[in-house]
């Protein structure tokens, strides 16, 4: 069968994890590629929206690419509505219409908080990053969040250097006391597997910690632990994920014709 990279597997699995329908807001980066793949594979009823102002985008069967960034003009072709950022991040998102936000970040921690802003101390940065864009409000206000990031110990940290995008913050009840609604079930898809969070009620109770639920082919849970910066919780039974199908791989690669998302050795 066809060779594939872990980054390709990550996108395919993230796509598979997406629901069959509902309103989805795609963040910058891999979420755009994975979301488009899902929409064109098993989830044609997914309503893809972007913070720039495209609502319910339907890619044509012969769409030449996944959107380059979230401002690609092709998002205007096939969208049921185009508008602006206040309508997208305000009316749509803060108004409570986004079922699922798909995000990526530089760091994620055990409670699913994300960091898009700075490595090290914000007051004396080791390394400054581009910034959060719309990542913060999507994490605050979407009903569910799916995060896509490569599995590396420096990225999977006990506590993000700077919490730009709240998951369960510091554990049970923390979202409520911060003034945020419940959220979940949330998930993280990495280059090794799929993680859920241990809370039955969107952050009100349970440990709210990340739990390894499924692994890629030939990835052992203890390998995942090595690239995780804290003592990782592992589900009683860890699902073994099927490799990408020929169809999934072919479409994924067709959607990234310039290797804008999956250039060799990028992850």
């Amino acid at each position, binding site marked *: 069968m066809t060779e594939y990279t872990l980054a390709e597997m990550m996108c395919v699995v993230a796509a598979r994890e997406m629901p069959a*329908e509902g*309103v989805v807001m795609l963040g910058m980066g891999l979420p755009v590629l994975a979301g488009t793949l899902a929409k064109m594979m098993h989830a*044609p*009823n997914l*309503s893809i929206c972007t913070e720039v102002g*495209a*609502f*319910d985008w*339907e890619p044509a069967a012969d769409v*030449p*690419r996944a959107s*380059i960034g979230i401002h*690609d*003009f*092709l998002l*205007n*072709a*096939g*969208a*049921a*509505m*185009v*508008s602006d950022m*206040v*309508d997208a991040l*305000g*009316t749509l*998102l*803060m*108004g*409570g*219409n986004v079922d699922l936000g798909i995000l990526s970040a530089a760091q994620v921690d055990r409670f699913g908080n994300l960091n898009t802003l700075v490595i090290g101390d914000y007051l004396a940065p080791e390394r400054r990053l581009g910034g959060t864009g719309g990542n913060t409000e999507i994490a605050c*206000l979407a009903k569910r969040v799916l995060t896509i990031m490569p599995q590396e110990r420096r990225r999977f940290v006990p506590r993000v250097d700077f919490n730009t995008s709240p998951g369960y913050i510091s554990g049970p009840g923390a979202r409520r006391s911060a003034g945020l609604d419940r959220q979940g079930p949330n998930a993280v898809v990495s280059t090794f597997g799929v993680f859920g969070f241990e809370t039955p009620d969107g952050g009100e109770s349970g440990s709210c910690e990340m739990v390894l639920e499924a692994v890629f082919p030939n990835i052992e849970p203890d390998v995942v632990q090595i690239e995780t910066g804290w003592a990782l919780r592992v589900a009683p039974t860890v699902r073994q994920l099927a490799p990408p199908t020929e169809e999934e791989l072919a479409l994924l690669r067709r959607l990234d014709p*310039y290797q*804008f998302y999956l250039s060799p050795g990028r992850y």
Partner: protein
Amino acid sequence: MTERKLMTESDAVSRFVDDGDSVYVGYTAAAYGLCREVVRQRKTGLELIGGSVGPQGTMLIMGGCADRVRSGYVAAALRPGAVQEMMNSGKLKYEDYSNQAIALMLMAGALGIPFIPTRSFLGTDYLDRRNVEHPGAYLGEKKWKVMESPFDGQQFVALPALRPDVCLLHAQRADEFGNVQSWGHQGDAKWAYWAGKKVIVSVEEIVPHEQVLEDPGRTIVPGFRVAAVVHMPRGAHPSGAIGYYDFDYAFQGVSGMHRMSLSDEAWRTFADEWIYGLADHAAYMEHYRERFGDQNLARTDVDSGPSPQPGVRYGYASELPFRMEDQP
């Protein structure tokens, strides 16, 4: 989304308008046909919402459907009669705002923020505590609050976000999935499409989904926000729909509609003939033709006004240059 939202006005109203709901009743292209159906189904305990509540709201008051109104203008209160008496007797509760206030409150509801500041109402008698507690009031301290900006001390009035249980709107066209397209001045309708918990839209035309995709900038709300779309040609009658037909002022005179707020008798006379006695909007239009003939209807047809010429394109390049292979 591929969920079909197209249904009859009877199904839309019976499924999505519940007794006791707060109901936005539209403005520039008022959903008269949907309001007549609400009267026909004898819903009760409704709260009317709109910057200015016109005759479509009067029908809901006189029909016994609505007992509260939150608005900047109540057309039925303009002349002495039953509605004025109901407001004085407390049978019709009311909270006076303004066109701007209702529009901003709907926007705040759509945005999901708890309130929105305005600088309107400062210096008026509306803000006096004794007036907030007027006999017709039902919001009390929840109506609004005078505050100061934490940044510059500017005084402002905090208006609470408004999310009507139902919004009844009429627009020019939609596809079967509820993607609604509307053009022309919108009044306070634009934000109602997003503020409503249940959005019901009657339209002049049902168009193919592909036609919506040809001009996504004309879409005012996407289908996933819409509970029901009803195909109702001339559904705004006797008001109008921009580009389709204009206001039928003559009808309001001869039908007795302009007198419906004066007394219960005047209301019954009008309503028995034009609402209760007719099964639906199709029957309403048929009755109009029988009573007044096509030529009177035709007098409201649009015969003037601009149409966009070609020139707009939502264009992109199917192949993007990422490298320059061919420099001269």
